[in-house]
Every structure is written in C-alpha cells, then in structure tokens.
C-alpha cells in the first residue's frame, strides 16, 4: 500500500497549519516569509500530484495507488483513497491552479479588508496582523480538502471533506475582498459569504441524509460499508439491489448537494455574489476548483451508486442544464460587473459539463471531464487577468473601462486570449471538451444538442462584448494610469495560456487518462454509445496510421 495519495493530501494540510503558525506579519519581511512558505508548500504539492499522474497507468485498474486506513470500524468507514483517471486529472488541475492563485493574490491579504474599510482596521489589530497568514493558510486548507474529495473512495470520507471545504471557503470569501467594492462592500461580502455557506450547507445536509439512507439500505442487505468500490461492485453485480423509489430518493439527495455546489440552474444564485465580492484568486478557487467537486461527484457517485435512477432523471437534468447554458450566457450578456459576468459565464459552462455527464456517452463524459479541467484553466486565466485589471483601476464596473489595450497591450492581449478560450475557440483547450460534450449529447438527444450549440454563439457574444467595452475604443478617464502586467502577473498568466494552447492542440495524454474511467462509469450504468446509422469502413481517417 503506497502512501503517495495521502501524502499528496497531507502536505497542503500540514502546510496550512505551518503557515497559520508562522509569526504574525507585522512587517513586510515577515509577510513575505509567510507567502514564500505557503507557495513552496503548494509547489511541493504540485510535485506530488505530478508523481501521482506519472505513476498512474491508463491501462491499469480503475482505482490505482489505493490505500485504506480503518477509521470507524463499527460503521464500516475507512479513510480510503484511490486515484482514477478522472480524479487524477482534477487533482492535477487543483495542484496547478493553487500556486498560481497564491501568486496572483500575493498582495491581496496585506492591506485592510477593502477600500471602504480602510482605516476601520487599526494597525496592529488581529485583523491586520494575521491576515496574511490566514489568507494563505486558508487557501492551503481548501486545497487539501479538495484533493481528498477528488481521491476519496469512501462515501463518508468524501462527504466529510465535501462539507468541511465550506469552512475555509467561508472565511476566504467573507474576510478578503478586492478593493473595488462600493461603500458597503463589507456588508455585501459578508452577505455573499453567508449565502454561500447556507446554500451549500443545505445541500450538504440533504446529502448527509442520503448518505445515511444509503448505509441503512446497504446494511439491510448485508453490505454494511461506506466503501464506494464495494458498493458499486455490489450494485453492478446485483448483490445489492436498491428498490427504485428508494434509489430515486437517494439519488436526488446526492444530486441536490452536487447541483448546488456545481452550481446548476436554478440553484446558482450564490455563485455571482461569491465570485463578485471575493478576490479574483478566491473566485478562481471557487469556480475552477471547489465547484468541480460537485460535477466530479455527479460523475463518480450519482452514476456509480444509482445507475437506474440516473437514467430515470437524466432527461430532466439535461433540460435544466440546457436552460442553465442559455440562461447563464444571456444573463452574462446583461451584466454590468466584470466578475459577475465571468461568474454567469461559468454557470453556462457548468451547464455544458452536466450535459456531458448525463448524456451518458463516452464522448459526452470524456468531454465533461476534459471540460472540468479546461474550464478551470481558461476561466482562471480570464478571471485572474480581470482581477489584475480591477486591482489597477479599483472598479468592477465594465462602464469604467475603455481603451485599455492602448495603455496595457499585454494585459489586453491576455484578457482576449482568456475570452477566446472561454468562447471555446478551436485550437484552445475548451473547444475540444465543448465539442465532445456537444457530440456526445447530440448523438443521444439531438434536439438538446442543437439548442446547446446556440450556446457557442452566445458565448462569443458575451466574451467579445466584454473585450470590446473594456479594452477597445478611446481611452476612458481613469484608465490612463493603468500599468501593463508585471513580471509576477505574467508568471501567473503565462502557464495558464500555455496550458490552454497545449491541451487544445494535443489533449491526447488527458484523454488517454480519462477514457478508461469513463468507460467504467458507463458500464456501471449499463449504457453504450448509440451506434452510427451507417458506420463507415473501419479504416476511416480517424484511425491512427
């Protein structure tokens, strides 16, 4: 039993404790040590994640590097981890993004809470002394919990960390904002934080009930365990038969939590507030990492544990996702606030992911998994550049910008790249995943596929409208002072852009990693891809020659 996975999860956790314990950052030097330590820890985590990916054989068993430490014997709960293709991909995403987020938020946690609160935090008070430690420790804590959720092969363990994630996120949202808010930005932010917490807590509690219910049902049939692998095996082998009604109820219990987290229309309203009020880095953590746990869990738990119920509800869910795609895009077009626009764009993208998951075709689900990764990268690039812009101008309103490309061409360029990635331009990573999702959906539900295709037009509309309004045209008053990207910020954006292009041109490594897991999932739900009506001869242009 290798301890690689638990090490990967433990390092950031330990790092969080260490960072929090560092001497209070009254001086800039101390702050820097804190940041450096945190960054080093996250980079170390990235190294471990890379090791995980390296030691993962696509051809091998679904769950690899598995390890299990007994926890609560009497309930058959064990702290068991295992990496499958999907999980590994997302672990990599998380490990890559966290250092960049830290680097992007390098100065977010030094000053007072926000512009309006300036001076409200007396120098030397806890607020201003420990802010830096708190910020970076919280980020590391989030990373650790997310990693565990991606790797957990025990339903209970997953639930615990799925919920525990909320605590550091709550403080990240509520305690640290960009300095661009209005006069009552503090109130707004705490409102957003509480909203985030309550929404997700509600979902989590419903899920808890479902988790317990699942255990009870399983225990009745002699499967008294929370182990995901054991349960799925029992279900697929027919040793464990959950009667349809119970199965539907349990499915809904799980799905509700994930749909809130994802978030799926109409449970999305917490996301714009949370992303709008928090710092750009936190917003990236929310949309690119934490929310992915939701969609990921749909794929791993909902489908794996309740195949029949998933099939029953798939059409409904897909329609909701479809609404989300169009709705999110349209609302994004109508936004006045840059970060809220990005948030609604993300809602639209989550619609695509859910679409792909429940289309239950190999293209759809591989596409959905790739989509999680690609959306994470591209949105991170877009959002972080937006954050840099906002931190310069001190406003989130689109109307306050104009002609930025004149004064800060590199910033404008990267922002454009982020936008193009978001509208999934071919040659960039999101295109691959989006097209796969569309094809996968279309091959089972043509009508939904066609409507979803409208999403690409709307995406172009909001992305380019934002670019046009902020970057082009004559230079607006107040924008002249905007400086171009600094070295640190370039160091943040460059890797993201590089990844976007690389994964757009050569996604094969990722797909090879993901495909087996997807096929396994499909076999769990007993679904096979619809065969083409008039299949071409085997040697089509697609085969590798």
């Amino acid at each position: 039993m290798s301890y690689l996975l638990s090490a990967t999860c433990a390092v950031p956790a330990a790092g969080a404790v260490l960072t929090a314990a560092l001497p209070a950052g009254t001086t800039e030097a101390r702050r820097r040590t804190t940041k450096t330590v945190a960054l080093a820890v996250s980079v170390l985590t990235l190294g471990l994640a890379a090791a995980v990916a390296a030691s993962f054989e696509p051809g091998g068993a679904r769950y690899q590097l598995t390890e299990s430490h007994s926890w609560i014997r009497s309930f058959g709960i064990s702290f068991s981890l295992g990496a499958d293709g999907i999980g590994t991909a997302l672990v990599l995403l998380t490990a890559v993004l966290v250092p960049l987020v830290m680097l992007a938020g390098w100065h977010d946690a030094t000053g007072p809470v926000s512009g309006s609160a300036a001076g409200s935090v007396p120098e030397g008070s806890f607020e201003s002394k420990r802010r830096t430690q708190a910020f970076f420790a919280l980020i590391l804590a989030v990373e650790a919990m997310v990693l565990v959720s991606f790797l957990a092969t025990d339903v209970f363990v997953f639930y615990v960390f799925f919920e525990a994630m909320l605590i550091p996120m709550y403080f990240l949202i509520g305690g640290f904002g960009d300095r661009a808010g209005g006069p009552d930005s503090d109130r707004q932010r705490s409102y957003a934080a509480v909203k985030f917490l309550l929404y997700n807590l509600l979902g989590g509690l419903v899920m808890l009930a479902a988790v317990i219910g699942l255990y009870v049902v399983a225990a009745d049939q002699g499967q008294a365990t929370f182990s995901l692998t054991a349960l799925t095996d029992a279900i697929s082998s027919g040793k464990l038969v959950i009667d349809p009604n119970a199965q539907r109820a349990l499915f809904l219990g799980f799905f509700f939590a994930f749909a809130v987290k994802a978030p799926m229309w109409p449970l999305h309203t917490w996301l714009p507030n949370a992303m709008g009020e928090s710092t750009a880095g936190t917003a990236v953590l929310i949309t690119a990492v934490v929310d992915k746990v939701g969609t990921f869990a749909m794929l791993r738990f909902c489908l794996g544990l309740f195949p029949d119920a998933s099939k029953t509800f798939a059409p409904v869910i897909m329609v909701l996702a479809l609404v989300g795609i169009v709705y999110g895009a349209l609302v994004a077009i109508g936004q006045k606030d840059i970060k809220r626009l990005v948030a609604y764009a993300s809602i639209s993208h989550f619609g695509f992911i859910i679409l792909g998951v429940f289309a239950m075709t190999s293209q759809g689900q591989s596409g959905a998994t790739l989509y999680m990764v690609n959306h994470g990268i591209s949105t991170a690039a877009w959002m972080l550049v937006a954050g840099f812009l906002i931190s310069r101008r001190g406003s989130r309103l689109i109307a306050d910008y104009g002609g930025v490309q004149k004064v800060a061409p590199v910033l404008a360029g990267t922002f454009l790249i982020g936008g193009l990635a978001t509208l999934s331009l071919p040659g960039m990573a999101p295109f691959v995943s989006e097209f796969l999702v569309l094809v996968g959906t279309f091959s089972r539900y043509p009508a939904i596929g066609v409507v979803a295709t409208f999403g690409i037009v709307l995406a172009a509309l909001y992305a380019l409208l934002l670019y046009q309004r902020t970057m082009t045209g004559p230079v607006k008053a107040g924008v002249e002072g905007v400086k171009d990207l600094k070295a640190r910020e370039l160091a943040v954006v460059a890797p993201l852009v590089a990844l976007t292009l690389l994964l757009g041109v050569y996604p094969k490594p990722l797909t090879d990693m993901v495909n087996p897991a997807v096929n396994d999932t499909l076999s769990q739900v007993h679904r096979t891809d619809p065969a083409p009506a008039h299949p071409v001869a085997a040697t089509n242009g697609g085969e590798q020659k």
Partner: protein
Amino acid sequence: MNSLIPLLVAAPLAGAALLLLGGRALDRFGHWIATALAALSFAFGLALFADMLGRDAEHRAVTEQLYSWIPVDGFQADVAFQLDQLSITFVLLITGVGTLIHLYSVGYMAHDERRRRFFAYLNLFLAAMLVLVLADNYLLLYVGWEGVGLASFLLIGFWQHKPSAATAAKKAFIVNRVGDMGLSIAIMLMFVEFGSFAFQPVFATAGDASEGKLTAIGLMLLLAACGKSAQVPLQSWLGDAMEGPTPVSALIHAATMVTAGVYLIVRSGAIFNLAPDAQTAVVVVGAVTLLFGAVVGCAKDDIKKALAGSTMSQIGYMIMAAGLGPIGYAFAIMHLVTHGFFKAGMFLGAGSVMHGMNDEVNMRHYGGLRKYMPVTFATFGLGYLAIIGFPGLSGFFSKDKIIEAAFAKGGTEGWILGLCALLGAAVTAFYMTRVMVLTFFGEKRWQPDAEGNDPHPHESPKSMTVPMVVLAFGSVFAGGLFVYGNSFLHWLEPVTGHAEGDSPLSPWTVTGLATACMLAGAALAWQMYGRSPVPVKPPVGSLLTRAARRDLLQDDFNHAVLVRPGTALAATLVWFDSRGLDGFVNGLAAAIGGISARLRRIQTGYVRTYALSMFGGTLVLVASTLLMRSV
C-alpha cells in the same frame, strides 16, 4: 515530399508566434520575417505543385497523417492533411496572393507603430487558411474555419481605438459564429450518421444515408458557407469589415477567406450531389446574393464598400455555380481564382488611392486621379476590365462559364438562374464603371481632410505598386490560361467530377448576351457619371438607392429582429435572476429570520418560567412513559 505539407502551415504559424512573442526587439524588421515566411510557404506550395504535376491524375491526392488529436472511444479526430488538386489550387492562391499582400503591407503600414502585430496577424491568417484548405476531416477544417475568423476579427479590429472598427470586428466574429454553429451541427450529424467526419469515409458512405439526413447536413454546411462568405442572410458583416486596413480587405475579404464557403460546398460535393433540395437552396442563396451585392455596390460612395458589395455579388456567382453541382464546381473554383486576382488587385488599387488621398474613402471626393497615379490607374483599370468580363480577360472566361452552366442547369430554373446571372453581369458592369469613373475620370472633387490640409495625390512606393502589377497580370491572363484546352477543368475533375448540362442556348449565344449586358451596363454608367459632373453631396436618390446605401436595410432588419429583442431578453433575465430566483431565496431567509424573532419572545429570562417549562416537560415525559407502559 509529403513532409512539406505540415511545413506549409508551420512556416506562417511560426512567424506569427515569433512576432507576437518576440516583443519590441522585432519592431524594426519583423515585417520582413513575416513576408519571408509567407514567401517560403509559397515556395513549398510550388514545390508540392510541381511534385503533384509529376504524378498522373489518379495518384495526385495524398494525405499526411500527423497525430491523433482527440482520441475518444468511437470518436477519432486527427490532425491530418490532405493535398489534392483542389487544395493545392487554394494553397497557391492563398500563399501567392498572401505573399504579395505582405509585400504591399510593408509599404502600406510603414507608419503604424503596431506594424509588427499586424504582420503577426497576417501570418496567423495564412496558417489558419492553409489548415482550412488542407484539412482531411471536417473537424480540422473547423479549426481553420474559426482560425480565419479569429484572424479576420483581429485584423478588422486592428485599429481598436476606433469604436467603429472594434464593433465591426465583433460583428464579423459573431455573425461568423452563427455560420460556425451550422458547421458544427453538420459535423455532429455526420458523426451520428457515419461515425466519422473525415472526408473520404464520409463521401464514400454518403450513399447509404437517407436523403433527408443528407439534406440536413447540406443545409447546415450552406449555413456555414453563408456566414463565412457573406451570403444572404448572413451577409451583413462584410460591409463593416472594410473598417480594417485595406490590405486586409484585399487578402481576407476579397481574395481568400470569404471564398472559403465556396471551397466548403465544392469540397462537400459528394454530399450535395445526393441532396438536390440542399443544392437548390445553395443556388437560390447564390443567385439572391449576387443581385443583392450588386445592388448594394451600385449605391455606395465609399470605394471600399462598393468593392465589398461587388465581392459579395461575385461570391454569389461562385456559390450559385457550386450549387449547380458537377456542372459548376470547377467553374466556381475557376471564378474564385480569377476573382482572387482581380479583386485583390482592385482593393490594393483602392488602398493606393486612399494612401495618396489622405485616407479619403468617399469616391465623390476623388476624380481625375489617372494623371496623378498612372500605375494604380493601369492596374485598377485592368482589374476593372477583368471583373466586368471584358472579352479576353480572365473575368470574361470564368463568369461566362458560370452563366453557361446556369443555363445548362436546364428547365425553368435554368432560365431563371441564367437571366439572374446576365442581369448580375449588367449591374456589375454598371457599378464598376461607376467606381472607375468617379475615381479616375472627371474633374477633381478633392476635399481637405479633417486636419484641413488638401490632398496631394501621388503614386505609391514600389513595395505597393509591384504587387498590384503582378496581380494585374494575373487578372489579365489567368482566365485564358485556365480555359485553354479546359486545362483547369481537367485539373479539378478527379476531385470535383464534371458533368455537361444540356444548355438551351449555344455557348456563343450566351457569350454574346453576356457581353451585350456588360456593354449596356457600362454605357449606362458612363451616361450617368461620365458625361455630367458628379455632385459632391450625394443626391437624395430613389427609395431603392437610399435602401441600398443602407445595405438594403439588412442591419436595420437584424437590429429590429435580433439585437433589440435579444438585449431586452437579457435585461429581463437579469431582472428575473436578481428579483425572481434570488428574491425567492432571500425571501425564504427573511421568513425564517422573522419566525425565529417571534420565537425569541419565549425567552423571558425569568428562571421560574424556565423551571416551569422544565417541570412541565418532565410531567409530559413521565406521563407518556407511563401511558406507554399501561398500553
């Protein structure tokens, strides 16, 4: 030899990357790097062409597999190039004209501080366009398809500080996106139908599919073509696209990119041949657009917009020809190539005129320029003769063939199409003569520009005139070269196939009619603009004229039907999101808060009240337990 094919794409791509990442260091000589790489790519093209000539017709098509792009079970998308007669034709056109226009831009953009980026975008465009024509499957074609869209977006909006330019760029991209939607749906249909979207397998098995499916695919492809080639109803972006620098208009919006739609339809001939309804749709679109564009071209005073209208109409010809099926494919491509020459030449000429006239675009402020810029006049004139189909020049042959093919379609629709084509020829002659006369003949109507300094028209530098001359040669001789022994037809036949229709009219009759129409149109234009002095302020004009000046109200239509409802819908949804959904959530929270505020009253703080409740509670508990016992 095939290993050259990727290099064909790689060269300009490398140029783009180099120039974009290179930074200010490359500002001084970056444009020469770009031009050199374009030329290199052209050289590769020539080499491959020669190599292809060396083989016999059956073995000319080669495919070059690079790597597997998106391998998912049952879904294989590869990066693979296919070089056959059709694609090599385009390769040569793109790289050739592209190189010339690079050269031209060196002079034209000399004073722009962002020249490096301009050339990077040009290279990017070349690369994308080459991917488009070289792809061996529709998904890779889609990559090029949107890639050229991106390049066009960047280049139209190159002068981003002008809001009009930024808006035009966005508009072009969005409208193209609508077309791209069609293409992607078509790809999905193919995948569902055939389990593949690579050219050979799909075309090979197209016969098995039901005609309905094929029609659907065809219509979706047509939608894509409409978007990219500015055909009705997705034509509205081309006029605004003239906001871009003139070389861009010449390369992208005249010679190459806008003709991608024609390429798509001709390439997908195997599908269209089996879907007559789709073909009819194509023909109708083409015919409508060719008249639409011509009418718009007649009314515009902006020289570039007039040329844009004519581009639209010429592409209408091509699309119509492509819609005629095997009868027309080859001719569509032929006209595409010749049009590439003369229209690019004329745009460059227009650019040179603007260059000399302080970027003045209004033809009513030109006049009598032939003395001042002789080379421009000569090249532009040759292009003019070519496009109106003056006997012996390239446009004459290619357009003539299309008109013949239209009649050869046979039946009433044959007649209708033929007459449309003839009418188009007449109108083309009219507005091109108008442009020619207004610009180069008549008395001077020059106006001081915004800064108030009068224009001093002068001939453009060598780097600009040389390409114009070369293109002029092309526009003179290309046609004759192609029809000589039907060389072009036989060249393309293995790819597109060919069929002789039964024309009700003999070729010579058609030629006569076409020439007559051309002369009539030209004469009318001379009558209107050559004889009488031209007012500097445009006359009010008839209803049709005014409509045509507003692009036949296409923008107003889109605005009324799409934009305004769209914005309204977005606003409504924003309201609904904050008031409706979020309002519900917040309302729930408020309700709970209120209830708990009520419940708080129970906490009187009097110990004895608490004691009482405790005692009562115990009472109830004990009672219930006892009852349970007794029951």
